[in-house]
């Protein structure tokens, strides 16, 4: 496929790796922000291709992972109501709440449906006027325009039986929280290419300047990621800390103005609790008051739910790049994708789930057993 296949060219990848080897003189720690990038890196073994000096740690950019347990429990409480059709993206279905997951609820009779696009929910609402259609609106800045459009259109078309349970998160406040932490190890970022397709990268420039950290907005194919690493290492070796764009074929500095405008009309910034990390100020979106009739949290008045996370799980430290999945004693033993203990194992894009899916837990066992 055009614009995918050419960015998986093996010979070219070897040259970029060779160039990284040529220019690197000392150890550097880089973080890829987005879960989709983590997935590509682990799938293609990009971290193993890089010279020992370059360490990749994995960022918090998996919205399914960081959706708080309280919010998931709220979603489940709403989905179980007999008057509700609960719609969600497919990757939220198996995420366990305190008691069950959406698939289990469906097997018990709840009307849970997977949609490809949030606009599909409007069709469902129109054809089921006696039901309340609720969409679980999670995601980063990339997904915000789609969710905003569904609310905007429902409002415009007078579709009153459609609402959204909003748990949107924003990338820059999470990066700031990582950089400001005393535990921080990250010296350069591969920025989230598709988030920046929407919002551009102007708001990353103050972060780079304040923390003296290079940020290279990077795509999702193997060559994109390798080139992103090369550009970041070049900056680190030269002592510069600029925001650069490795992904100009889709990302513009100002992002997508039309999309940003509608997102700002529908949503406003709020504090948000991140699973595994805790509350981060101004790190999420909520619906503006004008759209309160489409706000599922208000319409269904679900009470605050008390939840308990696992005490062994290290997902908070993994999300912040302080620990790697295999540093956790529960990884691949007590904690697996079928029985996840925490944020980074619950979605395929979480770092722990990606390590598990591509057999890294087996490699760990080998390492322990081998020499002696």
């Amino acid at each position, binding site marked *: 496929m055009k614009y995918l296949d050419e960015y*998986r060219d093996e010979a070219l990848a070897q040259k970029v790796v060779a160039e990284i080897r040529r220019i690197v003189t000392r150890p550097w720690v880089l973080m890829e922000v987005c*879960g989709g990038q983590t997935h590509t890196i682990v799938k293609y073994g990009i971290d193993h291709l890089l010279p020992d000096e370059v360490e990749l740690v994995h960022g918090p*950019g998996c919205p399914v992972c960081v959706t708080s347990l309280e919010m998931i429990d709220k979603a489940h409480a709403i989905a179980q109501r007999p008057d509700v059709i609960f719609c969600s993206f497919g990757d939220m279905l198996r995420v366990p709440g305190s008691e069950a997951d959406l698939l289990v609820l469906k097997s018990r009779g709840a009307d849970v449906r997977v949609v490809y*696009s949030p606009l599909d929910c409007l069709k469902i609402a129109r054809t089921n006027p006696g039901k309340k259609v609720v969409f679980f609106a999670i995601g980063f800045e*990339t997904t915000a*325009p*789609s969710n905003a459009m569904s609310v905007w259109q429902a409002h415009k078309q007078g579709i009153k039986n459609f609402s959204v349970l909003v748990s949107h998160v924003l990338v820059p406040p999470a990066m700031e929280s990582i950089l400001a932490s005393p535990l921080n190890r990250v010296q350069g970022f591969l920025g989230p290419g598709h988030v920046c397709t*929407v919002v551009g990268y102007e708001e990353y420039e103050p972060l780079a300047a304040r923390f003296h950290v290079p940020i290279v907005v990077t795509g999702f194919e193997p060559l994109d990621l390798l080139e992103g690493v090369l550009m970041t290492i070049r900056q680190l070796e030269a002592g510069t800390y600029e925001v650069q764009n490795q992904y100009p074929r*889709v990302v513009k500095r100002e992002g*997508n103005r039309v999309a940003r405008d509608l997102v700002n009309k529908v949503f406003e910034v709020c504090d948000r609790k991140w699973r595994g990390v805790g509350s981060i100020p101004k790190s999420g979106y909520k619906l503006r008051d004008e759209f309160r009739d489409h706000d599922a949290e208000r319409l269904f008045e679900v009470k605050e739910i008390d939840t308990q996370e696992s005490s062994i799980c290290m997902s908070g430290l993994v999300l912040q790049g302080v620990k790697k999945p295999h540093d956790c004693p529960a990884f691949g033993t007590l904690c697996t994708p079928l029985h996840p203990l925490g944020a980074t194992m619950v979605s395929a894009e979480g770092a722990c789930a990606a390590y598990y899916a591509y057999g890294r837990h087996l490699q760990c066992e080998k390492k322990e057993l081998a020499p002696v």
Partner: protein
Amino acid sequence: MCLAIPGKLIEISENPEGVRMGKANFGGIVKQVCLEYTPEVNTGDYVLVHVGFALSKVDEDVAARTYALLEEMKQLDELQEGEMGVEIPAQTLEERNGAP
């Protein structure tokens, strides 16, 4: 979650509610795409699609230039050394489309 893939726009239309829609071809699979955020695109353009929304036009000139720069690396002799095996298996569309 932030997965987005490039598809070729083969049709532009307006749905009964007045929303600008289109059809995009992803290596043989054709899907409905909302074009409200990309008023500038025309049939034949490549668009980057996320959960049924075109978020950006793929800039073919920039893509070609960036790729040419990368290809230049192939020509540099000093880079011939220190190579190691790189395995980059092809990924199917189904895999990429598995989750939004």
